């Protein structure tokens, strides 16, 4: 008969503890929870849920929850939200984000480097290499691109037809654009504008093509200092200002974008990425896209969405598997089919569903070599606010362009000096 003496009790207890420890570890690898914070709207949520469903087929014991941020007020506020989560130690495990946040997240050590994970995943060889280049910070990869948006001119073809204007062709100039906007602007008998030729953009991302196509930018090339004193910046701002206050072909930009006005046929041309295509398609608007007009080149801006893993995320194998689903071929095909952005994968961008609308849909992918990433330094949220504050003052005719550029330059450089001091 088995006797429980002191020695056997201690040994059996130790064995039990060791076994339970092993069992516990094994369970923690096969089950657990993953929290995802994604950015975007209904289409992005649907794509994410599809990815979760695929993940749960392989990892049925993991509970995956997703929260959505509509990015209603720009990426600066999203950065604030994520930093707040880390400060409160309530961060999600996976973040869906955009280039505007990359340097901020990476410089603050909020995200895990994933070079090994990327190297092991064969699906990513189909992605444009330029996208992965912008996913690096100080030589390490922290983000996997999912989709991207380059800003194009969306135009209402019915308005062009009615005005007897030929559709825009590649290489059209700023001057041609300005004349077309004037012709497309319609006023009623009381002088009230019933159809604007163009919406002078109100958001940092949408404004960039007017700087890039003039061979300049608000920041220098490595995003480390202001470039607001470049006369070409003033020239670009003056051009937009004059469309409002000289030509009367665009309204003063307000705090809201004019997407609904475009869908309602009250604006003929707007600067947007691919994300407006589903709404335009649903509204059955006879709309197409054109490359933004040229001043010294035909460059436009590109911003892209990506997925990253929070620093110190638990269940890393499962989290990486979830990221693989969020960025895999099925997820890319979902992006292409919904039209919420241009898929990162070239194969997905050749799907018939993606190319069905608008008529010039291939332009989005074709123009990728002629794009520059939206300037996204580690102090992006501050840079964006400074630039937009002076930009809106100029567009509202409250401040001369030269004064705005000078004051914005001083504030931007102060911000970069503070950033430098923080990083050192």
């Amino acid at each position: 008969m088995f006797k429980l003496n002191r020695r056997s009790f201690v040994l059996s207890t130790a064995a039990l503890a060791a076994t339970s420890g092993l069992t516990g570890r094994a369970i923690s690898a096969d089950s657990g929870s993953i929290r995802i914070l994604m950015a975007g709207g209904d289409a992005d949520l649907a794509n994410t849920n599809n990815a979760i469903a695929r993940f749960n087929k392989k990892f049925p014991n993991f509970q995956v929850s997703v929260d959505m941020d509509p990015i209603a007020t720009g990426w600066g506020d999203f950065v604030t939200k994520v930093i707040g989560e880390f400060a409160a130690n309530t961060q999600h495990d996976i973040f869906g984000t955009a280039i505007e946040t990359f340097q901020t997240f990476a410089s603050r050590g909020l995200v895990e480097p994933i070079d090994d994970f990327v190297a092991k995943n064969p699906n990513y060889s189909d992605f444009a290499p330029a996208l992965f280049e912008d996913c690096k910070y100080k030589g390490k990869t922290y983000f996997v691109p999912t989709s991207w948006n380059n800003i194009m001119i969306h135009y209402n073809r019915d308005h062009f037809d009615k005005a007897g204007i030929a559709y825009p062709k590649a290489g059209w100039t700023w001057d041609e654009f300005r004349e077309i906007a004037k012709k497309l602007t319609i006023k009623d008998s009381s002088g009230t504008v019933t159809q604007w030729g163009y919406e002078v953009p109100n958001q940092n991302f949408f404004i960039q093509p007017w700087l890039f196509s003039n061979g300049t930018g608000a920041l220098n090339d490595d995003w480390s200092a202001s470039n607001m004193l470049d006369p070409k910046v003033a020239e670009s701002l003056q051009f937009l200002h004059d469309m409002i206050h000289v030509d009367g072909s665009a309204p003063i930009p307000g705090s809201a974008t004019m997407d609904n006005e475009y869908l309602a046929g009250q604006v003929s041309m707007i600067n947007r990425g691919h994300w407006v295509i589903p709404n335009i398609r649903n509204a059955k608007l006879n709309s197409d896209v054109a490359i933004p007009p040229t001043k010294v080149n035909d460059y436009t801006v590109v911003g892209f969405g990506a997925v990253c893993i929070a620093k110190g995320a638990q269940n890393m194998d499962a989290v990486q598997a979830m990221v693989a689903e969020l960025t895999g071929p099925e997820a890319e095909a979902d992006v292409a089919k919904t039209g919420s952005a241009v898929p990162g994968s070239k194969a997905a961008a050749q799907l018939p569903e993606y190319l069905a609308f608008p008529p010039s849909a291939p332009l989005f992918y074709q123009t990728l070599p002629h794009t520059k990433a939206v300037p996204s330094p580690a102090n992006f949220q501050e840079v964006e606010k400074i630039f937009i504050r002076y930009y809106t003052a100029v567009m509202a005719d409250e401040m001369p362009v030269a004064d705005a550029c000078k004051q914005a330059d001083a504030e931007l450089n102060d911000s970069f000096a503070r950033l430098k001091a923080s990083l050192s």
Partner: protein
Amino acid sequence: MTTTAERRSDLRSSQAKAGYLFIFPSMLLYLAFVLVPVIITVILSFAYYDPQFGSHWVGFDNFKRFFTDPRSVQIFWNTLRFTAMAVTGNVTVGLLLALALNRAMPGWLLYFFRLAFFLPVIIAAAFVAIVWSYFFKDNGIFNYYLAHLGLPTVHWLSSAQTAMPSIVFMDVWKNTGFFMVIFIAALQGVPKAIMEAAIMDGTPPWRRFWRITLPWISPVVFFAVVYASIGALQVYESIWILTNGGPGDATRSMSINIVEQAFGSFQIGYGASVAVVMTVVILIITGAQLLISRRLVRY
């Protein structure tokens, strides 16, 4: 044997204990959500604080930066301008509405008017601002009627001249009902005997208002002015939704600046210093109002 004085002392002691026990929950909440955050804000105002990059003391640098930044003057002036206009509008319109409704009329009509004017008060400012942002659009309802009158389009929110008055207009529409209600309550406390005597003496209505009604309700008017001032000095959501503080800095308030600096630019120390300055400003303004009230308010 216990004396009467000892029994009274015991009673007082147990009453005091019960009193402290009753106020303990609210004191705990006050400490956790008011006093401790205020103390932390004051401490942070002397620091550079960043949860990731690290923190250090900076002395009075944050305050120096605030007082030497040309934007501070504009933002401070915006806040004072909004406060002056909003307080005047809310209190004056509220008082006029109360006077208009403080008269004999059918009960259902009285309740209808009171409800109609008070209803905007219970709607969240964010919702109100979103709806009014459509009214203020270039193709909104205001410009629609202006166009029918042959008047030019007004850029209500995108012009520095009209943006602030437009926000004040919305604020008065939203909040004046609250002041109307407290003024109605105050007006009903004016003794009828005095008013009837004045009427019998042939005192005209305007004189009755200045000589009897206004002095009688002056403590309530004073409360309304202080209450409206403190609220207006902290204005945030209506401006943020309608104009984002723009165009440029034309409508940016101190509250918006605090949030932008602390949570938009992660300069939490600097944001805290602006909050401290704002608190001092509110204290000074309230103190000045208290001093003035000693001359004007009749208790």
